[in-house]
């Protein structure tokens, strides 16, 4: 945890964050069929912090709650429990106050699907220019003619910073390929000069060669502008490339949080080991691998104790009964009884 205990205060701090969704049947069905209310604990007590200029990656399989964490951080969802601190202030109260706009300017989000996150009927100038208008970053007050020219110039500059042409401002999203659209999303996110970018699977919909282009741009921007990233992905190779710290999530909880080099060299939690073993070995080095077993359980009805115990080769009675807390074990935070007891 050397990086986390650094002298500077972290830009983003998350304490015991939780989000519960009500997925009960409609009232009439509950009464007639005597069904109880049902809740999904999408995020269940997650804590982490991100230092300025660093990248924290959250990895996990579908349904582990990583996208919910992303949405909680930028205020698209309100937390059920816990809090998010951005630069020392609690975001939940700020989002309800008059300072909300000022806070939103400082954090932006990039979504997974560049085909769904851009309005097909807007020109690029309007898409990327909208945050400029919304946050009053243009000199005039209303979108008068002069403003429009200024906006286009600013948008052109933003497009160039992500490797697109200035002339692209007049085009519509359908005139671009998937990779170019994702660059437009990045340009839009950068429009307000944010400090913190939440990237929810930004390259999962892209081909590898295009993914490489987008990842390179994101790293260049981080170097130049000192951006802080929360990077959500299910692809461990991509995570290894972009991140400084990695949090592994399973069924709404962080099971391992460690520095990147540490996590990939010495994965400790059995789930992290399993995930790493599951990656196809592209260089065919003949690395020994344990076969992965089982599937992610239904989040509506998670297993008792440690939620990973039905798939875990090291599970014992204690794992079935008692839920492990995230504890410091040899330089990383691990939530596992077996690691804590030194059984593995």
């Amino acid at each position: 945890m050397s990086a986390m205990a650094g002298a500077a205060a972290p830009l983003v701090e998350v304490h015991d964050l939780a989000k519960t969704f009500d997925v009960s049947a409609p009232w009439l069905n509950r009464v007639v069929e005597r069904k109880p209310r049902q809740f999904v604990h999408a995020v269940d007590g997650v804590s982490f912090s991100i230092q300025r200029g660093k990248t924290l990656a959250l990895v996990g399989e579908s349904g582990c709650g990583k996208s919910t964490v992303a949405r909680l951080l930028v205020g698209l969802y309100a937390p059920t429990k816990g809090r998010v601190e951005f630069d020392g202030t609690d975001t939940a109260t700020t989002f309800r106050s008059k300072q909300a706009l000022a806070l939103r300017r400082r954090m932006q989000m990039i979504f997974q699907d560049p085909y769904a996150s851009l309005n097909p009927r807007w020109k690029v100038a309007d898409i990327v220019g909208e945050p400029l208008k919304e946050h009053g970053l243009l000199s005039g007050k209303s979108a008068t003619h002069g403003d429009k020219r200024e906006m286009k110039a600013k948008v052109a500059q933003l497009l160039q910073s992500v490797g697109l042409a200035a002339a692209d401002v007049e085009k519509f999203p359908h005139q671009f390929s998937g990779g170019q659209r994702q660059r437009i999303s990045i340009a839009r996110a950068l429009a307000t000069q944010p400090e913190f970018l939440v990237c929810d699977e930004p390259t999962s919909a892209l081909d590898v060669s295009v993914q490489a282009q987008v990842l390179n741009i994101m790293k260049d921007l981080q170097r130049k502008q000192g951006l802080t990233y929360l990077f959500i992905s299910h692809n461990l190779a991509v995570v290894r490339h972009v991140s400084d710290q990695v949090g592994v999530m399973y069924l709404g909880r962080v099971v391992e949080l460690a520095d990147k080099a540490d996590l990939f060299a010495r994965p400790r939690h059995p789930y992290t080991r399993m995930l790493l073993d599951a990656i196809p070995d592209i260089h065919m080095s003949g690395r020994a691998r344990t076969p992965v077993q089982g599937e992610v359980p239904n989040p509506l009805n998670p297993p008792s104790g440690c939620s990973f115990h039905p798939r875990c080769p090291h599970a014992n009675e204690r794992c079935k009964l008692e839920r492990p807390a995230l504890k410091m074990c040899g330089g990383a935070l691990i939530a596992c009884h077996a690691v804590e007891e030194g059984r593995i």
Partner: protein
Amino acid sequence: MTTPLLEVRNLRVEFPTRRGKLVALDDISFDIAPGEILGVVGESGAGKSLTGAAIIGLLDPPGHVAAGEIRFDGRRIDNLPYEEMRKVRGRQIGAVFQDPLTSLNPLYTVGRQLVETIRTHLPVSADEARRRAIKLLQETGIPAAEARIDQYPHQFSGGMRQRVVIALALAAEPKLIVADEPTTALDVSIQAQIISLLRRLCKEHGAAVMLVTHDMGVIAETCDRVAVMYAGRIAEIGPVHDVIHAPAHPYTVGLMGSIPAMDEDRERLLQIDGAMPRLTAIPAGCAFNPRCPKVFDRCRVERPDLLPAGATRAACWLHAPSLREAA
């Protein structure tokens, strides 16, 4: 060398449109030996799925095979009438598609779909077919197969559904399985299970596999040989080990370099600038020439065929005999 199970020769697939015909696949030639696993890799729109569809005779009209031929077990199958092809499909060539939910009928139980497939192709009784269906489900690793055979697809998870689809593909003991992105819709931990299952079952049943995927890691783990496709043509084809460790085509080099590695740190990934051309605007000469770092005059004019390049064959003028002698 044994006679190949599948021979594809100079295959060309065209889509007539109002603005002229689009050539989606051009001059594709490759073989698959019995029991061999051939990977077909490429980016979206490279034509890899279309190659699979052409082989199983499921090209969406108006797409059609315009030239070349496909031979299966020595018999030409690309010009068979629809009903004849139906008998080949399923019986001789099985198929596994990307999305297990859309390839199963949601209104029929899994068992009914398996029994129907088995009885369509094999002369067995209903009881025998059901016994086989249960055995297939057990082989694909579905727990409590006797009970689950009477359940509907929505009662299965994504990974379990893909197991059922694999059971369906193997039901009539085909000699070849065309698997089109079988793991793309699945999580990594399930992906590894499905890949090893596909590999093991095909070995046990002696079936050859044509595995279409965009994931080079899956190819490396599974295949014997790999064909790299670009803009409707094969850019490079050869043994997996050679294509990955010593790629001969500049596109393969770029493709391999752009994949983040698990065992080395790089500040930047190797980047191929630009994007694959649209089918309406394939450049003259080599289709890769505008993006190629090693492009020279000949590439812009003349289109290269597959040329021997070390252990693989690559469609690149860098490997032309005249150039190599000069060098």
